[in-house]
């Protein structure tokens, strides 16, 4: 491929990458996508197959293009005022029109520069419109192609400015610099530029406060986390695979849910009126910052559970339409970039308002643990507050209580009864999201006695109500199940479909303990390969978000701190090694001193031997030539090297120096046989003899002179014998 074609194609490809970035933002209407793609294809065809009918078809006069551009400008104004009503989308539409115009009118050098600017603006606009991971791939492709395009643009301009450098007059088509070496060299440059880009990206200080950034994120609609929840609300999202959060456990290895029950708790509800759950403890208290920067409520006056090891989670939560902060049961504290954190009376944490961006926080949870006394207690005694709020039962038929008593007839302790109810609900009722469209008068009784099918809310509500009829305090909790474990990133990807409702039962000594009467659902067998690819992509997406999108000043400080800590460790290690060496040297010195003291005669001999050795070395250094009898001094070696080169050049021209000939004799011979070069050979011979056999130094001017003479000899050509004129013409 010749330079001109490669240059045009790379420019079109660069534009195509910028256009692709705009397409992936989903801000372009279909018509613009179609026209833009067609323009890219037509312009590429015009390079690959000049004169193709398609390219001729798209050739319009400059006047026509000007009219189209004016129309596009009017359309931009209308778009800005009436359609998009936003500068950025309207500008993007207009940019695409400009791109189409330029692609179909690439004639002059400035047209290509305009095209580069348009492509860069496209990538710039995409950066403002998206945060998705695909931008990373597009960015890398853009950088790669930009290196090629800019480099080829430079070479092409150089050829235009200096066509006389080439032998061929048809410079652009004749010269083909796109050799294999050139190809891999440019690719290497692109890779180097990418690495340098990453390094600069990490180092640039982050001081932006995001003042002028318009938030274009769409909030994910959740269900089941408001102050009032209708029975069946959670069912609305049970089929939505949208990821709502990703949870890492930095202090744990492997999937935590395989070792302990794991529920990401959001809200809890105490009052049930037969259709709707409500939180009568909704009044929220603002939490203070503790010393370590976390938000935690004041400890309860009476400890209600043992201190289990805390479970630390790093939660990356999407932009949800709820302000609730989720965490594994039961959250003790949260830490993050929150302006304010609120807590309700039932252990729920929330922000003051939903954040419309993805953000990360750390939650510290204490898993529940049943106290042995609660396990064996027949009739636990509950605090008055608990009894007042968590034994409330709506107006129900007596069948519910009868069912509860019948199921727990054989249970002697409250704990056994709770477990019996849990097992009964799991085994007896069928899980289904299809609970009919008709609004039920009494959804709980429908679930228990009529349909006998339902989903998590029905199971949990049934268990809470039946426990309350037995005098055991319980409440409904909503949140999320752990979801899918991503072994690439070691985190749980929690989706909308993982929304769940379960039961919390109160015990006097243990506090609230989690029960889950909903039976486990076997997910349909998924394609393993696709599932694996999906997890890998999600893991990369998480890393992209963490280390690119949300990379901030604190990360930079942490990186510097890490480097400094490692440097300190290395320094300490080096100090340790040096100390070891110093101690060893001290021991050696002591040993030597001991030897000298004990063996005074031997020390004298040794000292005499050392002195003799030093004298011998000094004697050698006084007569360097004796020591270096067979070696030349550097200046002599340099002169000899030049002379040897001259001899080689002359030998190549048919004049050899016999071994027994002195340099001057040889120079005379050269003067006889090749007069043209004798004016160079003579001075060089003289220079050589002066340096080699004399005491003159070999300076830079001598070196330059020798090089010049050698070049002159090298460039001289001896004429063949037949053409040489005889030295002494015959009279």
């Amino acid at each position, binding site marked *: 491929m010749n330079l001109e074609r490669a240059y045009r194609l790379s420019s079109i490809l660069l534009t195509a990458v910028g256009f692709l970035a705009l397409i992936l933002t989903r801000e372009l209407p279909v018509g613009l996508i179609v026209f833009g793609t067609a323009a890219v294809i037509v312009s590429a065809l015009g390079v690959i197959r000049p004169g193709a009918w398609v390219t001729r078809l798209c050739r319009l006069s400059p006047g026509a293009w000007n009219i189209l551009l004016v129309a596009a400008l009017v359309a931009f104004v209308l778009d800005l005022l009436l359609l998009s009503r936003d500068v950025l989308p309207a500008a993007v539409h207009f940019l695409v029109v400009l791109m189409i115009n330029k692609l179909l009118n690439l004639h002059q050098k400035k047209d290509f520069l305009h095209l580069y600017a348009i492509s860069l603006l496209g990538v710039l606009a995409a950066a*403002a419109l998206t945060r998705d991971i695909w931008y990373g791939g597009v960015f890398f492709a853009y950088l790669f192609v930009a290196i090629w395009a800019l480099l080829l643009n430079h070479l092409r301009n150089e050829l235009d400015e200096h066509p006389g450098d080439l032998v061929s007059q048809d410079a652009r088509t004749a010269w083909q610099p796109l050799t294999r070496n050139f190809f891999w060299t440019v690719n290497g440059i692109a890779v180097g530029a990418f690495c340098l880009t990453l390094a*600069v990206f990490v180092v640039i200080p982050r001081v932006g406060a995001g003042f002028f950034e318009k938030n274009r994120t769409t909030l994910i609609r959740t269900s089941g986390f408001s102050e009032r929840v209708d029975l069946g609300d959670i069912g609305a999202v049970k089929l939505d695979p949208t990821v709502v959060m990703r949870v890492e456990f930095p202090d744990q290895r492997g999937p935590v849910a395989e070792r302990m029950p794991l529920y990401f708790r959001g809200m809890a509800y105490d009052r049930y009126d037969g259709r709707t759950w409500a939180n009568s403890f909704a009044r929220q208290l603002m939490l203070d910052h503790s010393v370590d920067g976390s938000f935690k409520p004041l400890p309860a006056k009476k400890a209600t559970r043992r201190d289990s090891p805390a479970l630390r989670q790093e939660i990356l939560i999407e932009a949800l339409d709820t302000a609730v902060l989720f965490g594994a049961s039961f959250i003790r504290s949260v830490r993050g970039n929150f302006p304010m954190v609120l807590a309700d009376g039932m252990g729920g944490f929330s922000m003051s308002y939903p954040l419309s961006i993805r953000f990360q926080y750390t939650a510290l949870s204490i898993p529940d643990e049943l106290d042995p006394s609660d396990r064996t207690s027949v009739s636990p005694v509950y605090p008055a507050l608990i009894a007042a709020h968590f034994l409330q039962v709506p107006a129900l038929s007596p069948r519910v209580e009868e069912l509860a008593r019948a199921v727990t007839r054989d249970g002697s302790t409250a704990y056994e009864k709770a477990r019996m109810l849990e097992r009964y609900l799991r085994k007896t009722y069928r899980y289904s999201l299809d609970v009919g469209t008709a609004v039920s008068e009494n959804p709980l009784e429908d679930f228990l006695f009529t349909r006998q099918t339902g989903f998590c809310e029905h199971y949990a509500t049934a268990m809470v109500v039946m426990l309350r009829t037995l005098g055991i305090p319980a409440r409904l909790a909503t949140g999320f199940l752990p979801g899918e474990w991503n072994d690439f990133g070691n985190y749980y990807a929690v989706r909308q479909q993982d929304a769940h409702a379960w039961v919390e039962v109160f015990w006097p000594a243990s506090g609230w303990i989690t029960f889950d009467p909903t039976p486990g659902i076997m997910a349909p067998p998924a394609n393993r390969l696709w599932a694996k690819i999906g997890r890998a992509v999600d893991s990369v997406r998480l890393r992209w978000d963490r280390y690119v999108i949300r990379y901030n000043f604190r990360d930079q400080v942490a990186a510097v701190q890490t480097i400094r800590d490692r440097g300190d460790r290395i320094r300490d290690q080096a100090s340790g090694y040096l100390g070891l060496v110093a101690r060893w040297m001290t021991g050696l010195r002591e040993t030597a001193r001991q030897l000298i003291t004990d063996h005074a005669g031997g020390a004298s001999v040794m000292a005499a031997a050392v002195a003799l050795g030093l004298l011998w070395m000094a004697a050698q250094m006084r007569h360097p030539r004796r020591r270096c009898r067979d070696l030349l001094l550097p200046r002599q070696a340099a002169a000899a090297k030049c002379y040897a080169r001259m001899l080689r050049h002359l030998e190549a021209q048919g004049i050899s120096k016999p071994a027994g000939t002195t340099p001057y004799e040889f120079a005379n011979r050269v003067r006889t046989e090749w007069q043209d070069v004798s004016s160079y050979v003579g001075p060089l011979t003289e220079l050589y003899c002066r340096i080699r056999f004399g005491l003159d130094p070999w300076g830079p001017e001598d070196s330059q002179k020798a090089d010049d003479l050698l070049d*002159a000899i090298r460039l001289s050509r001896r004429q063949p014998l037949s053409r040489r004129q005889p030295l002494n013409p015959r009279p």
Partner: protein
Amino acid sequence: MIATVPRGLATMFEWARGVCRRLYRYRSLRVTPEGVRFLVLTLGIGVAALNTGNNLLYLLLAMMLSLIVMSGILSEHCLKNLIVRRTIPPHIFAGRPAMAAFSVRNGKGRFPSFSLGVMDVADGKLLDRNIHLLHVPAGATVARSYPLVYAQRGRYVLDGLKFLTRFPFGLFTKAASVACESEVIVYPTPQPLPQALLHDLEGAGYDHEMPRRGQGAALYNLRDYHSEDDSRTIHWKTSARQSRLIVRESEAEDQRRVTLAMPVQAAHPMPAAFERAVILMASLAAYFHARGFAIRVLLGDEELIHGADDAHLYRIFRMLALCREIHDDLYAAIPESLLRLNDISASEEFTVLVLPWPDARLASACRGVGRIIHADQEGA
């Protein structure tokens, strides 16, 4: 041992100086118009990134900055390890183009150099030779020649070469100076002598041949054989005719000699006249050399003894190229070398005195000279 210490220090100093010279390379950097636009765009993206705090804009900013850095690295790579040799023709005449040549060897083992513009540097000024090397492969040598034209005679120094490149992206022009000092001696250009002077010289010059014995080919004399004579010089024909041994004596080849003289001291600056005289001297030297004369030149107090080969002629040209007019307000005494002209003429050697300007006193003092030429009158 003590003597080796300063020698060791000197060696170490030389080594350190060489290292510093290698490390330090004179570089200059200018921004091209495309580079200005690029920098403005980079600045705009930087401001946008700072304002919004958008990390993707920071990513774009990092890309732009890395392109700038890569541009600097690659252009430096292009310019480094270029070994230059310049070859100047040994004899250059004023006003006549001479082809100089230089070769550039790319000393890098793997990477080529691109887009090298080459300029001469003389007296701190850049001389554009319109030489552009688009591609110098790794390890390869590229040679170019270019015309050198000097309007006036004299000594010129080419300090070195300057390489410029806009590789890789055309955003910046980086220049590197390579020391490659060359001295150029520009000779005065001999001009055809006026016809009247030619006739005059032709008549005067041959009359002043002084035949003498020597090792030439031409016959000088026939005489009787002496015992110490070489038997190979016996002229047998004449010996047969005269019935006694006759030997042949040859005439010396270099018996034709001329002395060219010119004063350089002047009471007042007269550069144009001086230049005319110098050119006339060069023309006369070329004329006599072409006719096989051994030429001696007296230029003010400088003297160049007789010689007849081409090298001697170029020595004469060099002497004329470097001569300078001496302004002596207290000019009174005639230079000793010019006063010897009369003695030289007395020894029957042809002498020519070229006067750049009218000088009656000098002309009177040298009235024994074979020929006095007034350069201003000859129109040389």
